[in-house]
C-alpha cells in the first residue's frame, strides 16, 4: 500500500509493522501525529499520558517486561522525561524500546531550539536519524530490532521537516503486538549505588560496542576527494546543493548520528565538511576522533534556524572556496502586514481573559502565563512570562514572594495535570498569595484537541483537597463571572492563594461536534444604528470574528462567528443581535 504519509504517520505505521504493543505520549508539535495515528489501533495499549515523564515510564516499564514499546514527545518534552531516560540506559530493557523525540528547529511551535542528540551523548543512548518519511518508516523498524538486540533504549530523532513532511511511503500491514512478562533481576533493575556502579562500568563498555555497530548505518554515495558527512534531513539539502554547485563529492550519510563509529576517521581520510540540522553534534564527535572538520563550529553553516538548499549550497561553497551566488528574490510591492496567530472566534479563553481584566482592574497584575492556546493572550497583553510547561504557577509563586505584586497565573487544564500540581502543593503549604486561573477547556487544544484528564478528575477536586479556596465559572457568563472572580481576588489581596476554574470546552472542538450533529449555530450581527464605534469588542474583547470597519464601527464576519454571544454581553450599547437561538448550542458545547 503506497500512501502519502506525514513523517509522523510513517513512524506510527513502522511501529505497527514492528509488533508494537505499548505506545505513550504527551501531545506536542511536531510529534503529536505519531500517537494520534496509533490511537485507532485498539489491539494495542495506547495512551495520552499526563506528561512526558509519565509517558516515558509507562513505555519503559513495558519494555523492561519485554513488550515492544514506544514513547513519543517533542524535544522539550524529553527534558521532562530526562530523569528516567538516564536510568533506562543503565538498566537496559528486554523488549524493543524506542523513544521518538521530534526537534523543532527555528521554533515553529516551541519555546526554544534544542538538539535531542545531546541527550543521546549524555545518557549513552544511540540516536537514529531518518532523513524523510520513507526513512522514518524504515528506521523505526531498525530501531526496534537494534533495541532488542542490544537490550538498550534507542532514540529516533525527528525534526519538523521530517515529522511534518508528506511523502509517498510503501506501508506493510501491522504485525501482531508483542507483549511481555517481567522477570525479576534485582541487580539489574535496582539502581542503588552498589548495583549502579557495576552497571555504569558495563554501560561504558556497551557504548564502545554500540559505536562499532554505528558503522552498519553508514551509506556512502558519490565520489571525489571532498568528503561531506551528513545525517537526517540535512542529507536532502546536500544532495540538491551538490547538483546546484556542480560539485563531485563523497557523501557519507550517518543513519546513526550518536555515537559515530571510530572507523569514520579512516573513511573520510581525516578531513570532512559536516552538514547537520541543529547543533554541531556530529561535528563535535568527529573532532574528538581527530577529524579536521568544517561545519558549524567555524561558522560555515548557521548555528540557528533551519537549513535549506540555499543555505547548504552557500555553506559548502564557503567551506570549499567555490564561487556561488544565491538567487535574488523579487521585492514585494508593499510591506506585508503581520498576521499573528490568534484565539479562535468564540474561544472561551478570550472571555476568561476579559473577565480577569475586569476583576483585577486597578491592580495592574503580573500575568504569569504558560504553554497552550492561552499563550495567545500575549496579543491581549495578558501573558508577561511564558517559559516552559508549568511556568505559570512555578514562576508566578516566585514573583509573588519576591515583592508585593499581584500575580495572576493562567494555566490550561492539560498543563495543570502535566506540570502544575507539585507547584500548587508548594503554594498551598506556604500559603503564597497568587490568583491561579485554570482555563479548563477539556482538551489539549493547541495540538489539535487530544482529551485531557479534566472530565475524569475535575480540577477543583484536586485544588480543594489541597485546601485552596476554589471558584468555578462559565466564561460565557461574563457579568456573573466577574463578580465571582472578584471574591477570589479579595482572598489573594488578603495574602492567601485562591483558584478560579473557568470551564467551557474548546470552541474548535465544540464547533466540529455541532457540525457533525447537524446543529445550526446562532450568529451575531452588529446593528450599525446602535454601534458607536467604542471599540470594546474589537480592541478589548478581541474576538477574531469582529472587524473594525473603516468607519470605526464593528462588523461581524458571518463566516467566522460561532455564536458564543460574549460580544452581546460585553457591548454597552446593545449593538449585537443574535440570529438563531443560543441555549441548545451552549448546552451541547458544554458537553463537547
Amino acid at each position: 500500500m503506497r500512501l502519502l504519509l506525514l513523517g509522523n504517520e510513517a513512524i506510527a505505521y513502522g511501529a505497527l509493522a514492528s509488533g508494537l504493543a505499548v505506545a505513550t505520549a504527551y501531545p506536542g508539535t511536531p510529534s503529536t501525529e505519531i500517537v494520534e495515528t496509533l490511537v485507532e489501533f485498539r489491539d494495542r495499549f495506547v495512551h495520552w499520558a499526563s506528561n512526558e515523564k509519565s509517558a516515558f515510564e509507562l513505555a519503559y516499564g513495558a519494555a523492561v517486561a519485554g513488550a515492544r514499546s514506544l514513547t513519543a514527545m517533542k524535544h522539550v518534552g524529553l527534558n521532562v522525561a530526562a530523569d528516567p531516560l538516564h536510568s533506562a540506559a543503565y538498566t537496559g530493557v528486554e523488549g524493543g524500546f524506542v523513544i521518538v523525540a521530534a526537534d523543532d528547529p527555528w521554533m515553529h511551535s516551541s519555546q526554544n531550539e534544542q538538539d535531542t542528540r545531546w541527550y543521546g551523548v549524555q545518557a549513552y543512548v544511540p540516536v537514529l536519524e531518518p532523513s524523510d518519511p520513507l526513512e522514518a518508516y524504515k528506521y523505526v523498524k531498525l530501531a526496534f530490532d537494534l533495541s532488542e538486540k542490544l537490550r538498550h533504549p534507542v532514540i529516533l530523532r525527528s525534526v519538523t521537516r521530517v515529522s511534518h513532511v508528506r511523502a509517498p511511503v510503501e506501508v506493510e500491514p501491522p504485525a501482531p503486538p508483542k507483549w511481555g512478562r517481567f522477570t525479576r533481576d534485582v541487580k539489574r533493575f535496582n539502581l542503588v549505588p552498589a548495583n549502579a556502579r557495576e552497571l555504569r562500568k558495563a554501560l561504558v563498555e556497551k557504548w564502545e560496542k554500540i559505536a562499532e555497530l554505528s558503522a552498519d548505518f553508514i551509506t556512502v554515495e558519490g565520489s571525489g576527494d571532498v568528503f561531506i558527512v551528513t545525517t537526517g534531513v540535512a542529507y536532502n539539502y546536500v544532495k540538491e546543493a551538490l547538483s546546484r554547485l556542480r560539485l563531485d563529492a563523497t557523501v557519507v550519510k550517518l543513519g546513526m548520528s550518536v555515537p559515530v563509529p571510530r572507523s569514520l576517521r579512516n573513511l573520510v581520510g581525516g578531513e570532512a565538511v559536516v552538514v547537520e540540522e541543529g547543533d554541531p553534534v556530529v561535528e563535535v564527535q568527529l573532532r574528538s576522533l581527530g577529524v579536521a572538520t568544517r561545519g558549524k563550529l567555524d561558522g560555515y553553516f548557521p548555528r540557528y534556524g533551519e537549513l535549506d538548499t540555499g543555505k547548504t549550497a552557500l555553506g559548502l561553497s564557503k567551506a570549499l572556496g567555490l564561487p556561488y551566488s544565491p538567487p535574488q528574490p523579487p521585492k514585494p510591492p508593499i510591506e506585508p502586514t503581520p498576521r499573528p496567530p490568534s484565539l479562535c472566534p468564540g474561544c472561551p479563553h478570550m472571555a476568561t481573559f476579559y473577565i480577569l481584566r475586569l476583576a483585577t482592574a486597578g491592580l495592574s497584575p503580573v500575568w504569569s502565563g504558560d504553554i497552550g492556546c492561552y499563550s495567545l493572550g500575549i496579543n491581549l497583553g495578558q501573558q508577561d512570562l511564558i517559559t516552559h510547561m508549568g511556568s505559570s504557577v512555578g514562576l508566578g509563586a516566585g514573583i509573588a514572594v519576591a515583592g508585593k505584586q499581584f500575580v495572576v497565573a493562567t494555566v490550561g487544564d492539560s498543563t495543570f495535570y502535566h506540570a502544575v500540581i507539585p507547584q500548587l502543593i508548594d503554594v498551598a503549604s506556604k500559603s503564597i498569595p497568587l490568583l491561579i486561573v485554570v482555563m479548563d477547556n477539556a482538551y489539549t487544544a493547541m495540538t489539535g484537541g487530544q482529551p485531557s484528564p479534566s472530565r475524569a478528575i475535575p480540577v477543583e477536586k484536586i485544588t480543594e483537597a489541597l485546601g485552596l479556596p476554589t471558584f468555578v465559572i462559565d466564561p460565557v457568563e461574563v457579568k456573573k463571572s466577574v463578580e465571582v472572580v472578584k471574591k477570589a481576588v479579595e482572598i489573594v489581596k488578603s495574602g492567601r492563594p485562591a483558584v478560579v476554574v473557568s470551564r467551557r470546552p474548546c470552541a474548535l472542538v465544540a464547533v466540529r461536534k455541532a457540525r457533525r450533529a447537524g446543529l445550526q449555530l446562532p450568529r451575531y450581527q452588529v446593528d450599525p444604528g446602535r454601534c458607536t464605534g467604542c471599540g470594546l469588542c474589537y480592541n478589548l474583547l478581541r474576538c477574531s470574528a469582529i472587524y473594525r470597519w473603516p468607519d470605526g464601527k464593528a462588523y461581524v464576519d458571518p463566516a467566522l462567528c460561532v455564536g458564543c454571544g460574549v460580544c452581546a454581553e460585553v457591548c454597552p450599547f446593545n449593538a449585537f443581535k443574535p440570529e438563531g437561538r443560543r441555549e441548545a448550542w451552549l448546552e451541547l458545547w458544554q458537553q463537547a
Partner: protein
Amino acid sequence: MATSIVVVGVGGQGVLTLARWIGEASLSEGYDVRIAEVHGMSQRGGSVEVHVRFGKVVYAPIVEEGGADYVVALEAVEAVRAFKYLKPGEVLVVNKRVIQPPGRWISEEELLGSLQRSGVKTYIVPAADVARELGSVLYENAVMLGFLSQLLGLPMPPSLDDRNREAFRRGARLFV
C-alpha cells in the same frame, strides 16, 4: 528538476488540503512528492505556508527564498508575504480575496493592483466568488486547484468529493 510551489493563506482556509491535493495529483502522474506542512500555532487564524515539491526525484522538503516556481495564495495579504519565495521571473497565482489582518484595513483594489504592477507574472483568480456561487466560501481551495491543474498540467486528484469536483471544474474553466 523539481517543481517548487509555495502555497499560502490564512488558517482555516484549507491551505493544507489544497497542498495535499496538488501532491496527490502529482503522485498520480508518477512524480515523487514532498509536502512540508505546518501544524500548531500557525493554524489559529494566522498565516499558513505549505511547501510542495514534485518531480522525478525530490530531496529537499522546503523551498528557499527565491526558489519557488509558483507562489499560490488563497489570500492576497499572504501573497505579499510569500513574495520573497518567488524565483526571479516566476509566477504568482492569487485568489481574489482579502482577509483583513488585525488592526489594519487594506483595500482590495490597492492590494491586488500593487501585485499586478509588481512586474511578476500574476494571475488573479476569482475563486472565492465562484465558491460562494457554489454555496460556500469553503470551496475556494478546490476552485483554485482546478485553475492550477490547467497551469501545471496536473489531473484532478482522486480524493475529491462531488461538490469539490464541481468546484474544480469551475476553476479549470477560469484558466484561459
